[in-house]
């Protein structure tokens, strides 16, 4: 099949991820992606669109987002105001129907990719309100009494951070994939893609330090791929030599520019303590 997703020049996809994406593309069912924050869930949709040459729509969900907003909104308030002001636009209801992202995607002339980002942030009923839309890819506009149908069933990628459980009926309609935290080999590939000219030793040291930090028990927030990439970027810009990352450096307790990896002071503190203890034991 020519139309297959195999990752891109800036996104490394594992075999399992490719299998999931391709299944979702071929059968045009929504793909639900979960995983630790910073493992490239959101980026995936962009990269699918880029590699398969499809138009891309995104719909970011907030705690106040309603399912209806993705379809369309009827701006009754401005119509009411216009009627008071005697605006001629008021005669045509279509002037007050604002298309949502889902409608835009349904209207697209070729099969688009639609990202519904962080669906778990929305209200608990939100996924239930989208069941028919995702299943049949159509919805009904009450105000104008028309049914909007997708011209081409879009490839829908939905991401979730597990803040809320999603209802079963919704899950049944989706494919599901959990992006596991990459192992060292995959991580090396990922870093390679982002920093092709990185020195071998620096990469090696950085990855060792990174995985060591991740293994620290009790961290509030484990650093993830995107944080590693930020950190390496900082290391490169500041031209830090690989030796500085080695833990036997006597002066520094924690790696340089740790702020990119550890995101709260308790974690930094905990890590300092552990490094200190380790060093004392080593003596």
């Amino acid at each position: 099949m020519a139309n297959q997703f195999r990752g891109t020049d800036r996104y490394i996809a594992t075999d399992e991820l490719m299998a999931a994406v391709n299944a979702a593309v071929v059968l045009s069912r929504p793909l639900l992606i979960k995983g630790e924050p910073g493992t490239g869930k959101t980026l995936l949709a962009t990269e699918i669109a880029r590699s398969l040459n499809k138009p891309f729509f995104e719909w970011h969900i907030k705690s106040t987002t309603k399912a209806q907003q993705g379809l369309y909104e009827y701006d009754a308030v401005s119509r009411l105001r216009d009627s008071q002001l005697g605006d001629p636009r008021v005669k045509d209801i279509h002037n007050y129907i604002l298309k949502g992202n889902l409608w835009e995607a349904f209207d697209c002339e070729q099969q688009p990719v639609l990202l519904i980002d962080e669906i778990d942030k929305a209200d608990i009923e939100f996924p239930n309100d989208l069941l028919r839309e995702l299943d049949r890819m159509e919805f009904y506009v009450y105000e104008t009494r028309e049914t909007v149908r997708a011209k081409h069933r879009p490839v829908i990628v939905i991401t979730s951070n597990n803040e809320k459980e999603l209802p079963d009926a919704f899950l049944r309609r989706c494919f599901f994939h959990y992006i596991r935290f990459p192992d060292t080999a995959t991580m090396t590939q990922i870093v390679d893609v982002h920093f092709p000219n990185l020195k071998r030793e620096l990469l090696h040291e950085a990855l060792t330090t990174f995985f060591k930090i991740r293994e620290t028990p009790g961290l509030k927030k484990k650093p993830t791929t995107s944080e590693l990439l930020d950190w390496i970027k900082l290391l490169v810009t500041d031209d830090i030599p690989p030796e500085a990352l080695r833990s036997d450096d006597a002066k520094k307790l924690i790696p340089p520019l740790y702020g990119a990896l550890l995101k709260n002071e308790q974690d930094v503190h905990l890590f300092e303590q552990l490094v200190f203890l380790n060093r004392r034991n080593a003596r």
Partner: protein
Amino acid sequence: MLVKFFFMLRKTGVPVSITELLTLLEALKAGLGDLSAERFYYLARTCLVKDERFYDRYDRAFAAHFKGVEDLFSALQRDLPADWLENLGVREFSDEEKAQIEALGGWDKLMETLKKRLEEQKERHQGGSKWIGTAGTSPYGAYGFNPEGVRIGQDGGRNRSAVKVWDKREFANLDDKVELGTRNIKIALRRLRRFARQGVPDELALADTIDATARSGGWLDIRMQAERRNAIKILLLLDIGGSMDDHVKTCEELFSAAKSEFKHLEHFYFHNFIYEALWKDNRRRFNQHTTTTEIIRTYGSDYKLIFVGDATMSPYEITHAGGSVEHWNAEPGSVWLDRLIKHYPKFAWINPQPQSRWRQTASIDMTREMLEGRMYPLTLAGLDQCIDALT
């Protein structure tokens, strides 16, 4: 073959439905299976499993079911019969395959092993190595345990690399086996809900708008209001001591029901009685705890405080400094309990011990007295009373 696998998954506890099986068949028909065991494994997982908590169970079921059958994949790759997909749904095993399976101890035995394993897990689970559904390590050691010597999916077939994927069982940690609490508990807890309008005003306040418009002489004056939300806050302190082992299951149900019912729910564990520190993760209780003072500082007095514990211990553990069974406490537990209930005017203690036995235990009586009698049994009626006390 797939139908059997399907039922196997259901038996293992992965919630799969017919829709999902049909989706998988459709996907296979579209040629996504690629005839390699590994691809098939990923594809089937994407179609059938909808939560990473079930990945581990899926791995186990997959390993058990396709044990010996993975050779089938290589066989298929050799001659590729055109109609193999059609046959998948209704496939029966050939004599040769049956012999293969028989050599492995037979299906019944495999299934039985699986069942035994599950039971074993449940027991150990209840034994206290993993408590009340905080995500954590899976308590069962898996390999090595098995009276029959049938090792599910441990030694690889011809296609080694493929077997490895599900044999690694990397998702073992994600499997939380807490059964969802009974609906009854949830409904009882629902009475605690207190709706309040907080946050972004994004709803049209109709009455307000009409009022304001009328006041401004008919010119529209839109008024907005925030949405109604459940604003109740709960601080749950759970006893995790040895004597609580008998009540683990009911407490789990209570906990998981409470967790799904309240947005602002904080929980901490204690052992037998409250002292100067509590902890969030039972595995790290010795090196990672939160001091009780800090809890009082962090969570305001609008939190409702619920203790869950059997309050069954030696009275010294309550009244004396240094009475704790686990460590040296500088101040007696009663002082700490007093501080907590002074700070949180709405409090209650839920006791899983049957009420009839309360009189026989001195420590329960003492605790009850300190709590001004606000101790309730862990029954539906008790929960109702408890909620009355909290509202």
